[in-house]
């Protein structure tokens, strides 16, 4: 028996490897079938670069908004541990819903709220002549809707595993609440916040369903890279594969940058 004490039983290893293969093989197929000869030419096309820039720009802004709104929401969620069970579970469920909702449904919901005849949108249109659908703002809102839960849950995980005694000590030493949050809490959960932000960014970058439903698709305004990829699939599958690889490459770079810090509760070491 050469197996060391740290070895893992085959009962675990075999299904684990099958599971891993299931996750990886489709991506391998994408790489194998890619039109490597013409890939640079396809990716350097003007319309592709326009989509890529739009995707990177909107995803960055969406991530910024998620940080501003999502970190406080994560703090609230972490503190809800002391609440009564009903509001506590309700809050968590509400935050998690966009994760499990088909993004298209999210897009329809955004239209019904902020569309030209939406609950809020109709007043924006009547009073300020503002229409949100078909604008880059709509792309960003769709991305915020689907990506914010990733950030909130990552940060909340970090907050819950952080040691509250530091905060209590700072408070007893006379620090204001804001001061404690900024100088003690944030640095403690810093890795969780950056992990959440990167995850939020990649999710925004890949957003398709809510975007095409709520924001539509117009080159340079709302047509993000995933939307371009989908349209190319109907015209030129090779181009679609090339664009998928581009999205995959960006996602891999970001996730490798995360190392193993992206699981809620695992804040890295």
């Amino acid at each position, binding site marked *: 028996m050469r197996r060391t004490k740290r070895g893992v039983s085959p009962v675990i290893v075999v299904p684990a490897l099958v599971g891993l293969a299931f996750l990886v093989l489709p991506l391998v197929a994408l790489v194998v079938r890619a039109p490597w000869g013409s890939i640079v030419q396809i990716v350097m096309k003007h319309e592709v670069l326009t989509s890529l820039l739009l995707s990177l720009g909107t995803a960055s802004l969406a991530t910024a908004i998620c940080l501003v709104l999502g970190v406080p929401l994560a703090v609230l969620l972490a503190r809800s541990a002391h609440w009564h069970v009903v509001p506590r579970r309700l809050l968590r469920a509400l935050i998690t819903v966009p994760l499990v909702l088909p993004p298209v449904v999210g897009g329809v919901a955004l*239209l*019904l709220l902020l*569309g*030209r*005849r939406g609950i809020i949108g109709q007043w924006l249109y009547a009073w300020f002549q503002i*229409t949100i*659908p*078909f604008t880059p703002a709509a792309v960003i809102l769709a991305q915020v809707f689907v990506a914010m839960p990733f950030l909130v849950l990552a940060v909340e995980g970090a907050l819950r595993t952080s040691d509250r005694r530091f905060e209590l000590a700072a408070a007893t030493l006379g620090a204001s609440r804001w001061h404690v949050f900024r100088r003690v809490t944030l640095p403690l959960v810093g890795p969780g916040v950056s992990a959440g932000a990167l995850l939020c960014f990649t999710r925004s970058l890949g957003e398709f369903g809510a975007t*095409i*439903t709520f*924001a*539509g*698709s*117009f*080159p340079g*305004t*709302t*047509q993000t890279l995933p*939307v371009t990829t*989908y*349209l*190319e699939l*109907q*015209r030129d599958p090779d181009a679609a594969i090339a664009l998928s690889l581009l999205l995959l490459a960006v996602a891999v770079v970001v996730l490798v940058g995360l190392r193993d810090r992206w699981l809620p509760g695992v804040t890295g070491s």
Partner: protein
Amino acid sequence: MVAAAVVVAALALAGCSAQSAPSPTATAAPVTLTVYAAASLTDSFADIAKEFEKQYPSVKITYNFGGSSALAAQLVAASPGDVFAAASATTMKTVTDASLVTGAPQIFVTNSLELVVPKGNPANVTGLGDLANPDLSIALCAAAVPCGAAALRLLAQEGVTAAPDTLEQDVKAVLAKVELGEVDAALVYRTDVTAAGDKVEGIDVPGADRVVNRYPIAVLKSAPNQTTARAFVDFVLGTTGQAILTKAGFGAPN
């Protein structure tokens, strides 16, 4: 009754050419017919199946509805079927090129574009020229999909430079934006306007009848019962089938 006579006559002919003439109307063993049909035919073909089965009680029709190019790909990948009804000549060509079809495909309907506006026409759209107004919110299909290609041809033919705000991935997505009132006008197929009922209003575009999609139908070589498959095709081309399709907004084959 006329339709019935036409179909029976067609069957008789088909039966003769096939030598042994198993009359599908008689108490033959139950036959299942698998029909691959373009998604835009969903409603009208369901009605056609009902009428057909009434006339041929021993035949049961099952449909495989989908995008024409996806259906063609399935057939080329050797999926078994009896009849293929496509929404465009190019998708049918994929199947005929693979020599999967018996005889030549026949055009059974045409579909053309129509201007569509939300109920009540809030922006007072009157014609194709309004699509050039940058102040209006306009939706078209993306050029990569058939309805977008047709829209571009129609706009070019009428000399209109459209100012669309969104280029959607399929015709139903365009229609949804109109139904929700998010756009003031859009170009969709006439059948989509009919299917949407009173949630939208259609505006005829002069010249739209010169930019048409022709729908071909054909019996597949893989059909185990060629006679019954042929009978279904003839039924679609016959009076009853054509009446159902016309009601759905399709144009007659010309």
